[in-house]
């Protein structure tokens, strides 16, 4: 039952008054008390009752006030963990209302602080995440910037290399043109060589024919010489026969002379005949000897002629072989020159194709050069953009860090509020 404080004071006063009246009424019935002291006693009793009630009431009141004060102090210090409890709840009064109001205030404050703390927590963690993310992004942006730099440098190198390639291909094109003109010259030379080799081959062929004819004639002459020598040898044989006959005749003449001598005077004429025969035989022998020596010298000369002829034939043969070889060599030269000419022609054709290919390549490389230059420019733009982005990222990271710090300090502040009673 709610009783207001003022009513409680009134009720106490009434109780004191009533107790005085009652004691005053009851005193005559109390033995031992002198009638003169009956008044004093009833006042004394009223005072005692009054003191008791007053003391009880004021103790309860001041206790509640003290609790409220200490709760206010606690709240001021940020401890929102405990509710305010006031005693004498049998008869609640304004202190109870005040306590209730404070409890309600504390509850709403607690929920507010809890919300703030939760939000601050979230903000802190989000801002930390944000800070981390922005740092990562910043790092990524830096990485991108570095990579872009590298790409830019690569693009520059590429551009240089493309330029170098263009130069080299132009040189190559010039070289190819030179090769083409050389191949043309070679083809012309091969034509000339071919013509010369053909006329040389013809000349070698005709000289070969002449040599063959001469060789045939020489062989015929050699054969004639052999026949001649054989005839001479026959003459020699005949001369030998004649010589033998002459010697026989000589011997017969000698023996005839001996026989004639033996015949004495009768044999004288026969002896003269025999002497003549001997002389004839001697002459024959001399002539035969001369013929023999003549035949021998002829034979000797014939042999010399034969050997000279053989030598001539040998030389002719080697001349023929040389001419043959010359002819073959000319044929070989002709074949080679034809091969050279056809190869030189194909080289010329190929080099023409190469020249057009090289020109196409140069055009393509020029195109590449342009693309590479565009790429380089684009890469530089990208690099610049990336640097700007990187700077923005850094700023953003800085801001996120500041936000994180702010949320951290806010959390620190909010943490000063104690929302739950300690478990200890």
């Amino acid at each position, binding site marked *: 039952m709610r009783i207001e404080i003022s009513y409680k004071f009134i009720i106490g006063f009434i109780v004191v008054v009533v107790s005085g009246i009652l004691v005053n009424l009851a005193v005559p019935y109390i033995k031992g008390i002198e009638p003169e002291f009956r008044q004093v006693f009833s006042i004394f009793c009223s005072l005692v009752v009054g003191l008791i009630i007053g003391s009880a009431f004021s103790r309860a009141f001041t206790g509640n006030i003290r609790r409220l004060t200490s709760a206010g102090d606690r709240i001021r210090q940020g401890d929102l963990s405990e509710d305010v409890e006031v005693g004498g709840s049998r008869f609640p009064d304004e202190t109870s209302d005040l306590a209730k109001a404070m409890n309600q205030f504390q509850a709403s404050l607690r929920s507010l602080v809890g919300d703030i703390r939760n939000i601050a927590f979230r903000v802190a963690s989000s801002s930390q995440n944000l800070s981390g993310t922005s740092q990562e992004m910043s790092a990524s942006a830096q990485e991108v910037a570095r990579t872009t730099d590298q790409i830019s440098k690569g693009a520059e190198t590429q551009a240089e290399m493309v330029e170098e390639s263009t130069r080299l291909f132009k040189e190559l094109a010039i070289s190819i043109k030179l090769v083409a003109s050389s191949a043309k010259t070679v083809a012309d030379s091969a034509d000339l060589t071919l013509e010369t080799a053909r006329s040389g081959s013809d000349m070698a062929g005709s000289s070969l024919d002449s040599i063959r004819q001469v060789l045939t004639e020489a062989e015929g002459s050699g054969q004639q010489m052999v026949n001649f020598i054989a005839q001479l040898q026959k003459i020699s044989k005949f001369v030998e026969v004649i010589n033998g006959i002459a010697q*026989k005749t000589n*011997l017969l003449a*000698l*023996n005839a*002379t*001996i026989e004639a*001598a*033996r015949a004495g005077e009768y044999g004288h004429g026969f*002896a003269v005949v025999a002497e003549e025969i*001997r002389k004839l035989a001697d002459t024959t022998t001399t002539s035969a000897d001369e013929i023999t020596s003549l035949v021998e010298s002829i034979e000797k000369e014939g042999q010399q002629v034969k050997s000279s002829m053989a030598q001539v034939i040998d030389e002719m043969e080697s001349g023929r072989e040389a001419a043959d070889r010359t002819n073959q060599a000319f044929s070989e030269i002709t074949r080679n020159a034809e091969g050279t000419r056809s190869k030189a022609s194909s080289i010329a054709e190929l080099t023409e194709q190469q020249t057009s290919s090289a020109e196409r390549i140069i055009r393509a490389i020029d195109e590449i050069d342009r693309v590479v230059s565009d790429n380089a420019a684009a890469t530089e733009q990208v690099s610049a953009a990336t640097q700007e982005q990187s700077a923005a990222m850094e700023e953003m990271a800085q801001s996120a860090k500041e936000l994180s710090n702010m949320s951290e300090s806010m959390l620190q502040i909010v943490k000063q509020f104690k929302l739950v009673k300690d478990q200890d």
Partner: protein
Amino acid sequence: MALILIYKLGDDLYGLEIDAIQEIIENPVLHYVPRAEGVLTGSINFHGQILAVIDLPALLDFAVAQRDHRHLVLTPDYRSLVLTTSGVERIVNLEMELLQAPPEGYDRPAVRGVIDYDETTINLLDTDEVIKQLEEIFAE
């Protein structure tokens, strides 16, 4: 005048009267005589007679001498010997009055006398000396 057959012994010219010569034969079939002396070259069949062939240059010690294929067959007065010479030349008619005795100390063997003919000296063979030497050889 006498007919003399001139022949060679070594490089010297010798002569022999043709009265001593039966015949001049050419390339006879020479038969080998076993265990004969060096001067006896062999034997030949001369018209059915077996005649000894004497190597005259060897007998008369002509160290270097060729042998002719013609041989002199001597008459039976000269034991029918067959003489081999270094070369039969010819028959000449010589003045035998011009024949001279070999000079003192003449070194050619078996020379009966020398005669000049046609700017050369012809040694006339001493057949007796030859036969004597042969007899000496074959007597041993």
